[in-house]
């Protein structure tokens, strides 16, 4: 990883610290600054309220020319998060062909927060959950809350 990329990550971290989105805590290791650990509270008013979710952000060597890789380390019942031990997320500005260097990590975090409030059904990585969200909202909310209780307390 080049010095400029490190510099940029450093700078982003500083900015994040100055203006951390609500309900978030960032664990940053200066020795290994390409891997961030984020603790995110489920946004109030969403089905995930009350849950604490651990996320991992890994910066590729080509950062900022390539997007950071975001994954949920805490299991979450969400159409946009893969329902496996990877917890991968892949949508919107996180896609390699849509990522632009001016985008910042803090924007990624805000996007995730907004997705927890309102999932993006059309871009669902878990189509079954997406369908459920669209067609049987009650069932979805029940499962999501159940998962929060089970995994995210």
């Amino acid at each position: 990883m080049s010095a400029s990329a490190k510099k940029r990550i450093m700078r982003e971290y500083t900015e994040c610290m100055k203006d951390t989105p609500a309900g978030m805590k960032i664990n940053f290791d200066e020795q290994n600054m390409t891997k961030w650990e984020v603790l995110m509270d489920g946004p109030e008013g969403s089905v995930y309220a009350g849950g604490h979710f651990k996320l991992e952000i890994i910066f590729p060597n080509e950062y900022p020319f390539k997007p950071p890789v975001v994954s949920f380390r805490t299991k979450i019942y969400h159409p946009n998060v893969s329902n496996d031990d990877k917890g991968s997320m892949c949508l919107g500005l996180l896609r390699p062909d849509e990522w632009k260097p001016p985008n910042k990590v803090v924007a990624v975090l805000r996007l995730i927060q907004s997705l927890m409030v309102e999932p993006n059904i059309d871009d669902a990585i878990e189509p079954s959950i997406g369908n459920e969200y669209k067609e049987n909202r009650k069932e979805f909310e029940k499962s999501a809350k159940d998962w929060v209780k089970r995994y995210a307390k």
Partner: protein
Amino acid sequence: MSAESINIITIDFPDPDRTEIITDRIDGLAVRSSQNLVHILPEHALSNYQLQSNESFQFPVQNIQTLSSKGVERGDDPYGLLYIPALQTDECRNSEKDYVPKNATRLINLPYNAGYALIAVAPWFSSNCMKEYFLTARNEPVKAFIVYQPDPESTATPPKTNDQVWALNDGGSWQYSNQFPTYAVPGASGYLIASQMSNYSGNISTVPYGDSLSKQYPESDYIRLWAKVTADSGTQLPSLWVFLVIVLGLLILIIGATSLCMHFVQRRRRNSLRRRIINGEVDLEALGVKRLTVPADYLSKLPVFPYLGEPDHVEKSMAQASTSVDAETGLKGVPISRRSSAADAPPATHASAIFAQSTCPICLDDFEPKESQVRELPCRHIFHVDCIDPFLLNNSSLCPICKQSVLPPGYCPSRITNIMVRRERLISRRQAQEASGRSHSPGNIVARLPAAYDSIRARVGGVTGGRPSRTQPRTVDIEMSSGTYPAPPVGTISTATPAPEIVAVPQPTRQNGVEEYPEPPSDQPQQRREWTRQRALALLGNRYGLVEGESEEEEEQGRSRWRRGLNQIFPGFR
């Protein structure tokens, strides 16, 4: 094996019954068997026994017809003493008198019981008598049989073996029953030989030049005619290994020709791809065929200037920059492109664009007026030179912000590889399928896209216009910091990019934040499930694929050595 010639000479050899020192005089010629002396005169010994041509009969027979080549091996030409086989019936013996001189050499005129190699001579005057000749010859050490039609005038080559004159009314079986070859000579030659045989059948004093010969040789010596057949080797079938060599040679020839053909075809495809790239019909980057990078010499031509905070300075610098670019494009002989047209745009627009971008989007540092060296891309986004140059040199030729190519339209990499050709063909084929699929049932497109297509996309990671994976307009709320780093206003773009005909695969829909992708199929749940599954695979595959091997060199590395070798011989073969 047909006979080319029969050479008849006269030889002198001692009487084995009268000579006790056979092995001395006929060195190595006489083989003593258990009971009989078997004399075989080999070819190499002939010179010792051949009489001088001025005092003996020598006659090369021409115009020979081979009636049967049975028993003749390659390199083992028949030879032997000439004699006329005996007939069994009185009837034939009486008829023979009309054709053969009375005292022509018979077996009895040769050393008794001596088993010399023999060559029989007989006139073909009647089929019954001919059968008797053959019957006798089969019981004697006959190496070959010379026959002739009873026509003393004829010197032409006798008829072929299947001619009626050689019929013995046995369906041709005589040829198989005889263990020796049969040669037909012209009638004139046959008569000559027969008459000479009558000269050389008695003792030494009775032969022509007998007086002088009897002074040279002991009286007991025999002087007889000797024939040697020279057979050609032309008609013999090639042996097995020759056959194998021929097959191998043919195989190599076929492989070579195929390889050559494929190289030629591949070369034509490369040239065609190059031509289409230059004409702007194909955009490697947009198709995802290859991720281009910007060559250093070209990058150095993109304008670099210190970031200027004040409008008049900016204008001045922009004027400089544009003239320099114009000069360069002029030097390069490139027709008016979007680059030079960008430079032609009103300076005011430039100034505003530059002002709008006060921060380097890569390192997020603010530009320092008059201090920061910035590089301006053709899309008029500016970056720190140190930030953008390594990216353009090593990673991509696209502007990191608007994904517009830095390279001029029709830019063609110096090396078009076979892999690029293959990808381009694959992708254009898929696109054709996609287009036809779209017109029929849009829902099946994704399901029909094979994984290979996605993997190519993923490797290259190019910006693609046709990927059917997005269904909604780009969410505007996540387009962050739009005030800080604006893409040039759409209106400016349309003036600055006035050449849609040379931008091969533009993505105008992207510029407006709207993308056109096929809707997910909604009619059948099964279809829909497959569609979403494929899409999820594509998304994940793309993301991870990008991090890993993306260049064709790496793709090449990943293949086994023999596959690479095979590809060297048969390019374009998968």
